[in-house]
């Protein structure tokens, strides 16, 4: 809202010593941010709760209260000349009928006019406030809109059928060409002003072109009304039509201002020689409500502010803002002025006092802690732990958008029906909620690769979405070299690096997991993807997936050909496992262990896990560890076989093992391997 300071000074006795910047600062200090100052004109930002300050009068009231000087509510003002002789009554040459309760009040006056340009001072004020002058009649209505915040509209009486005014709902499919020359199709939810034949204005939003005031107009019907905020808001939104009038009505206009505005407008018409009133003012006001009175308790005021504002200041502030205050013992009964649609309860009054007393004057205190504080949410702490763990393991945390492109999401969704889509996305790039952490991470990786950053290891923990709901996951992508150093050739990351991240996470949360080949991950290279399972008392749950991304997928996301990307994702709900601090330790061994190495030839398709399983099943309890340390195929090994070398570690808790019993155990293992898998010892 742009307000010229000279105009504000007409309505309030602002100190002559206060310049434009001082006035801007004072009004900003009571809650109206200053967007800019240009010469004499201050542009204030008006919050949604204060339609009364979408007017010079409202801002002058705030300024007067801030400076503790006389303002619009306390200054004695002579009523405009026309008001003294004006009679308000139901009779009129243009009868008014209200057919919907969405119109709370409708006042109408007739005037004979000579349409022409406005005087320069008036036109200049409109221009300063960002409204284009049109002609003296329209300019007067806009002037009143700016000064009082009361929107008005002038109809050419000669172009009203009847002439009469009916405030009614639009008929479905009814059309109206508005002042901006747009043909609008209305529906039955919209309130209109109609004449005897058709709609002539959209109530509170915009007038129609057909009844517009023109150079030929000689008699006008001047409307000053009140429409229900929600209906104006809905209509304005549905038609995509934002106007100065709608901005005020949809936030709540002053129900009492309708006739006062009309009187002032007629006075102004006469003052600038544009016309004069004809007959009485019609005022249709079906159910005038009583003014709200709120009791403000001293105890509540002190408690909420944490400060004691003196009685005199409470009275001064509220009275200056237009409230009628009656002291009652230590408390106050406060009548709310009709323009303060935002003030409904005691807390609102306390805000008024606090705002003008000054929040900065309230002494700073610190709230007492009366109960023991609680630990942070388990999920928050878990995410913190994961971040520290993975950062320590060399992965960089990324933050990617929750909404992504449909094509990027699709390969990772359980099916197109499971994707959560946004009804009103900003663009196609932000159209669906991510079904997985991986598409965002892949795009981040691609972003870096395209900038010649080759070695990229990223992770992110956060929410993923499907029609089943929201889940917490951690995802990671790795690409480039494992270690870059002048002392050795660079080695590219592979699937085992990605698998290792999953193992690390499971380990950190005390979860026992195993990998199995997966066949249902369409984003992975077939044969290079594993499911991560957690065994939980006989039941087995898949909690994650690790794989090498399909080249077609990586190139679709802008990665150069030949770049290997391995990735993994884990459901965090499964990592509730163990709080590290509560993890118990096992006693350290007191007897030495014995190691035996075994090199066997196995079928190339036989999983190491199967070999390990056979070994464990056939070994005594003294076998404490089985670890592969070499896998070889090539010269000396049949083409469909591989050589697998394993180190077996034996140890007993209570005694030192003898060579003989270890040897017996190894022989039993070799025998079992041969029997189960047909393996042979290498070199035999």
């Amino acid at each position: 809202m742009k307000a010229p300071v000279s105009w504000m000074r007409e309505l309030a006795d602002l100190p002559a010593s206060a310049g434009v910047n001082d006035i801007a600062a004072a009004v900003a200090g009571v809650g109206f941010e200053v967007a800019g100052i240009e010469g004499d004109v201050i542009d204030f930002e008006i919050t949604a709760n204060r339609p009364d300050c979408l007017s010079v009068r409202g801002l002058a009231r705030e300024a007067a209260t801030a400076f503790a000087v006389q303002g619009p509510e306390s200054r004695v003002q002579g009523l405009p000349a026309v008001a003294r002789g004006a009679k308000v009554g139901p009779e009129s040459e243009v009868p008014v009928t209200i057919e919907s309760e969405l119109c709370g009040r409708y006042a109408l006056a007739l005037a004979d006019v000579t349409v022409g340009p406005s005087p320069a001072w008036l036109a200049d004020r409109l221009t300063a406030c960002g409204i284009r002058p049109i002609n003296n009649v329209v300019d007067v209505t806009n002037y009143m809109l700016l000064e009082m915040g009361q929107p008005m509209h002038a109809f050419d009486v000669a172009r009203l059928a009847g002439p009469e005014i009916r405030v009614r709902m639009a008929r479905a499919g009814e059309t109206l060409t508005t002042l901006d020359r747009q043909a609008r199709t209305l529906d039955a939810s919209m309130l209109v002003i109609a004449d005897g034949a058709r709609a002539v204005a959209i109530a509170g939003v915009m007038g129609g072109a057909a009844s517009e005031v023109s150079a030929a107009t000689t008699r006008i019907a001047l409307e000053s009304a009140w429409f229900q905020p929600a209906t104006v808001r809905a209509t304005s939104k549905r038609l995509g039509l934002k106007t100065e009038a709608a901005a005020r009505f949809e936030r709540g206009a002053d129900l009492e201002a309708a006739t006062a505005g009309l009187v002032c407008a007629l006075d102004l018409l006469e003052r600038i020689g544009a016309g004069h009133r004809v007959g009485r003012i019609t005022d249709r006001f079906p159910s005038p409500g009583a003014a709200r009175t709120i009791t403000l308790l001293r105890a509540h005021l002190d408690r909420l502010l944490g400060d004691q504002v003196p009685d005199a200041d409470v009275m001064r502030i509220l009275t200056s803002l237009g409230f009628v205050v009656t002291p009652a013992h230590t408390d106050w009964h406060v009548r709310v002025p009709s323009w303060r649609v935002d003030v409904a309860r005691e807390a609102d009054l306390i805000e008024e006092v606090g705002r003008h007393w000054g929040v900065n004057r309230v002494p700073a205190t610190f709230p007492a802690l009366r109960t023991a504080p609680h630990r942070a949410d388990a999920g928050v702490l878990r995410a913190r732990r994961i971040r520290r763990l993975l950062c320590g393991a060399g992965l960089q945390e990324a933050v990617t958008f929750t909404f992504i492109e449909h094509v990027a999401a699709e390969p990772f969704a359980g099916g197109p029906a499971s994707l959560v889509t946004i009804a009103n996305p900003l663009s196609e790039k932000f159209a669906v909620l991510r079904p997985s952490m991986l598409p965002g991470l892949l795009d981040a990786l691609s972003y870096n690769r395209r900038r010649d950053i080759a070695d990229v290891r990223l992770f992110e923990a956060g929410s993923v979405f499907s029609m089943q709901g929201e889940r917490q996951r951690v995802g990671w992508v790795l690409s480039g070299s494992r270690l870059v150093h002048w002392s050795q050739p660079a080695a590219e990351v592979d699937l085992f690096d990605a698998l290792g991240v999953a193992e690390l996470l499971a380990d950190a949360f005390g979860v026992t997991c195993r990998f199995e080949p997966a066949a249902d991950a369409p984003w992975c290279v077939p044969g290079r993807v594993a499911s991560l399972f957690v065994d939980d008392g006989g039941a087995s749950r898949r909690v994650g997936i690790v794989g090498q991304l399909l080249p077609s997928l990586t190139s679709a996301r802008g990665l150069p050909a030949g770049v290997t990307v391995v990735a993994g994702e884990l459901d965090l709900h499964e990592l509730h496992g163990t709080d590290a601090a509560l993890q118990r330790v096992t006693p350290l061994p007191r007897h030495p262990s014995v190691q035996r190495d075994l090199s066997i030839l196995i079928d190339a398709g036989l999983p190491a896990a199967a070999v390990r399983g056979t070994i464990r099943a056939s070994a005594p309890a003294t076998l404490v560890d089985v670890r592969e340390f070499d896998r070889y195929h090539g010269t000396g090994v049949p083409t469909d076989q591989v050589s697998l070398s394993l180190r077996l570690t034996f140890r007993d808790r209570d005694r030192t093992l003898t060579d003989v019993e270890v040897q017996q155990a190894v022989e039993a293992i070799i025998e079992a391997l041969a029997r189960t898998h047909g393996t042979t010892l290498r070199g035999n």
Partner: protein
Amino acid sequence: MTPMAASSIEDLSRQFRAALDAASSPADLKALRDDFLSRKQGRVTALVKSIATAPPEERRALGSMANALKQEIEQALDARDAAMLATARPKDTVDVSLPARRPWVGRRHPLTQVRERVEDIFMAMGYQVVAGPEIEDDWHNFEALNMPAAHPARDMQDTLYLSSPVPAPDNARAATLLRTHTSGMQIRHMEAHDPPVRIIAPGRVYRRDNFDATHTPMFTQVEGLVVDENISLGDLKGTLNAFAEEFFDAKVATRFRPSFFPYTEPSAELDVECQGCSGRGCGLCKHTGWIEILGCGMVHPAVFEAVGYDANRYTGFAFGMGIERLALRLYGVDDIRMFYENDLRFLEQIAL
């Protein structure tokens, strides 16, 4: 003893000392040793031989002088040899100026670091960190926060809606929108717990906003809520002043400006003195000397009524801050998009 013979021994000693001073390498020492002590051509050896030609009564004295010289030279050479050995470059020396083999290490994202910094400050003040869903229902995001349908304030936060509702696991209300603030978590917490309440709710929030240097459709928010008997605006001020001081690690001037939020009454915005210019005014603070960091206020009684708290008995304050905005200040970044590009050249400049 002829003065001649004695003086030539002293000469030799002087010459040796000069040569020893000049020696700078093991090779020099070896040459010096050969020059003076070699059995064949050594100068001391020659001197000893020449004693035989001296008069018999002088031989004894000359002999002991020559021996003393020989011992002195040997000891000096040995000492110097040992000293040189001690400072010599050892075999298999490694060039430590070559690039080291650094362990893999990653960094927490700057937005995480700022968020955890905020969380840590409030945790130390006894706040519980809570979490909640990013897809919300209308009740928790709007209604319970004093924003009924068609409330003008809904326009302040243009909302992203889901095409079809997603069932929520823990309550009857299906999610219909992306939360526009983390205030829904305050409602959830109050619905489940009686006062006193002292929580912060961090998380991602979403607005239907353009993506440019100063706007982003997704950002990170941390909200706080304190509810108890007799919580005042003064308590809010004291708390936020303490936070600002901890966060910026300095005594910073603060300023509260009245504002409007539907769920607080009174409402205010908190400005801190611009760190870039110490309040004198610069481009960073649009020449005002102040930078807005958060919105706050006293909890609106309608919010208490929505969650079943006694609005006459309890009062409370709430505040909410944007992590991106704080991070822009902290890192001196002027384009908010940098936080979402994940450019390693940017991320690797952030502290480990």
